[in-house]
């Protein structure tokens, strides 16, 4: 079977790539697209380390075929900062030590960003249930949850609109 040619948008840039029909979006990101920020922890949708958004909807890229990206808009961890300016969640994760080994961090940030876009002031319980699909084995989640709550509060106070669109 000849490879598929896929035209898509990744982090705002038009992109084209070739993939096997059976390749997942995670395979394509980590392979031909060279975007290794999305991690493979399980390849079964249970750990969330490969979280991306497609048309602003949070998904696991291991559970999507690369072919399905045709004509859609994909966002990954690599598109989260604006140039040199870190997203407030990224900055807060650093300040509040919401990461240890860092392997889950990309997925945590992408998922947290998706939450705040939908629900700018979530409760602790809402954060915890939203992030239930993102496994972290290092932190016990405490500092991650606090960082998300703190970012939400700060973003609302400061009206950081550039990261809300």
């Amino acid at each position, binding site marked *: 079977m000849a490879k598929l040619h896929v035209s898509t948008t990744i982090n705002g840039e038009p992109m084209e790539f070739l993939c*096997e029909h059976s390749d997942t979006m995670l395979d394509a990101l980590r392979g031909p697209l060279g975007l290794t920020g999305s991690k493979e922890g399980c390849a079964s949708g249970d750990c969330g380390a490969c979280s991306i958004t497609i048309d602003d909807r949070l998904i696991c890229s291991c559970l999507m075929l690369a072919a399905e990206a045709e004509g859609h808009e994909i966002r990954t961890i690599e598109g989260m900062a604006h140039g040199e300016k870190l997203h407030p969640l990224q900055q807060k994760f650093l300040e509040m030590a919401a990461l240890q080994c860092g392997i889950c961090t990309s997925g945590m940030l992408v998922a947290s960003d998706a939450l705040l876009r939908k629900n700018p002031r979530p409760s602790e319980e809402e954060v915890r249930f939203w992030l239930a699909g993102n496994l972290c084995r290092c932190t016990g989640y405490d500092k991650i949850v606090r960082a998300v709550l703190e970012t939400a509060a700060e973003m609302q106070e400061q009206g950081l609109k550039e990261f809300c669109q």
Partner: protein
Amino acid sequence: MTELRYLAPSSLDEAIGAFAAAGSAARILAGGTDLLVQMRSGVLKPGLIVDIKKIAEMTAIEETADGGFHIGAAASGMALAEHARFGKVWPGVLEAVNLIGSKQVQGRASAGGNLCNGSPAGDSVPAMVAAGAIVTVQGPNGRRQMKVEDVPAGPGRTNLLPGEILVSFTLPPRPKGSSDAYLRMIPRTEMDIAVVGVGVSLTLKDGVCTAARIGLGAVAPTVLLVEAAANALIGSKLDDAALNAAAAACSAACRPIDDKRGTITYRTKVAGVLLKRTTAIAAKRAQEN
């Protein structure tokens, strides 16, 4: 897996043509949250994947003039949650669909996929059974309708005919005083497969239960419609005696297995406990409608 072919037709006829022609080697791709896992683990090696999400009818969510709903088989749980009215009319179905996996999975997983995957533990199925949903299927010989509880044939198997594709669910209009609820037992708070799942849909009039349907999951080879439990509730004021009788009927209906997720004893007991808890939630919601 290199022999696999991916197709994303934009019409149902085209999809059915390709799907039927490829025979047993073909698989339908809706959310893909079961299919891709099965492919990755080597359980499934399909020759053709038909992605149905480019077919408008498959992802549509429509409230009908009479107050019922048509839900495209591939509509994701998140899309249902974002619908302005659906969750108000069918909160139990919505909560069931949105217990399938993580938020990431809910962004993809559909009620149609959950049903066609054929797992007795699929969360949306007991709620759909309780809701009295009718499914529309279409194949090379045209369209037909089935009761949702008639779709599963056993673990991993359905009663769809070769070449047939599940198109949509139809949920009936709700009389005043009606609501539904779904609860499942899992060891953690999220991310597990149901050990037992219970969907309850009921109608209350002056505090008396005038109609009820109960779907019970993960306790038998297929999701069960437990009429004996519903009959125990109908005509009662959902008093303890009625709830105990319904719980006993649920436990009696169980034909579970011992596996890594639960034991026969545990599942049988929990089915009754969950019936009571789910009924209480549905009743509270019904009183507010």
